[in-house]
């Protein structure tokens, strides 16, 4: 392992956490997905670019850089999905809670509530 690899790993993990905790926005999500897709297209069309990029950051082969970037992309998408699912769950919970409050019954309303379900 080269010296740069753990440093790069820490930087990427730190950047992802910072993004999800402080910087996330819908526009930024979309921009990142677009940038990753554009980078993929450019690298597929110009494999030598990957090798150049690899040498510039101290990694031997271009294919390794692509694997690292792919792993990063998968990790990012995974976290994006978790984040979206949690957002949906929160909204679903609010809806269910509002429904429960709207249909609450007081003591003595037993017949009403058993009919309502």
């Amino acid at each position, binding site marked *: 392992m080269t010296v740069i690899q753990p440093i790069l790993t820490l930087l990427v993990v730190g950047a992802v*956490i910072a993004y*999800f*905790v402080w910087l996330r926005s819908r526009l930024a999500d979309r921009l990142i997905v677009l940038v990753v897709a554009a980078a993929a297209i450019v690298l597929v069309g110009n494999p030598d670019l990957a090798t150049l990029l690899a040498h510039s950051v101290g990694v031997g082969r271009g294919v390794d850089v692509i694997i690292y970037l792919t792993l990063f992309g998968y990790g990012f998408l995974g*976290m994006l999905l*978790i*984040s979206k699912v*949690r957002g949906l*769950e*929160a909204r*679903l*919970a609010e809806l*269910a*809670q509002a*429904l*429960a*409050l709207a*249909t*609450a*019954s*007081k*003591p*003595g309303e*037993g017949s009403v*509530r*058993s009919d309502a*379900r």
Partner: protein
Amino acid sequence: MNRASVFVIVPCYNEERTVGAVLESLLSFGYTVVAVDDGSTDNSWKVTCTLPVHALRHPINLGQGAALQTGMSYALREGAALVVHFDADGQHAAEQIGDLVAPILSGEADVVLGSRFLRKSDSELVPFVRALVLKAGIVINGLLTGMWLHDTHNGFRALSARAARAIRLRESGFAHATEILAELRGARLRVVECPVTVRYTEYALSKGQPMRNAVNIVVDLCLRKLFR
């Protein structure tokens, strides 16, 4: 104390064997009982509907934290002076509610948390493995919330109306216990602990899976930190 102004919130999910007796015991003390059925698939809701309690039902299962939040929102709407969180599995004792709310009534505290580890006679009742997991939970809670307590994840607690209004539980699962502490600290509320006895009945033990719950809680807390 006007006991009718104390709203006891009982979240319930598939507790048909115990919920009836638990609600009746609370009613016998004259408290206002708010039963929140969390989308039970057994007969819990039917049992609840036969009793003179305030009854609410989530159309789907959301988790204990969400049920407590629904109950608190309802209680505040109905003019509660105090709210008490009380489990539906028969682990808590209605006769201890008086001790739990006393520090709030005397103006000493805004929130009182029940603790199993303040009296030797109570802590001796906690099964060994559960006690170990709970102790680990105390450390994790302390690190995450800055509140170092003798017990955590004890569902028996009392809040003044002001305190209940100041917090908002968003964490649906078991991690809500840690979330409550973080919210209390954020709202600068006065918190004290009160010794309570938790009855580990065969039924309660058969339902509890402390290790699995502990792992779930830690994962939930990490996700909560990351995706606020």
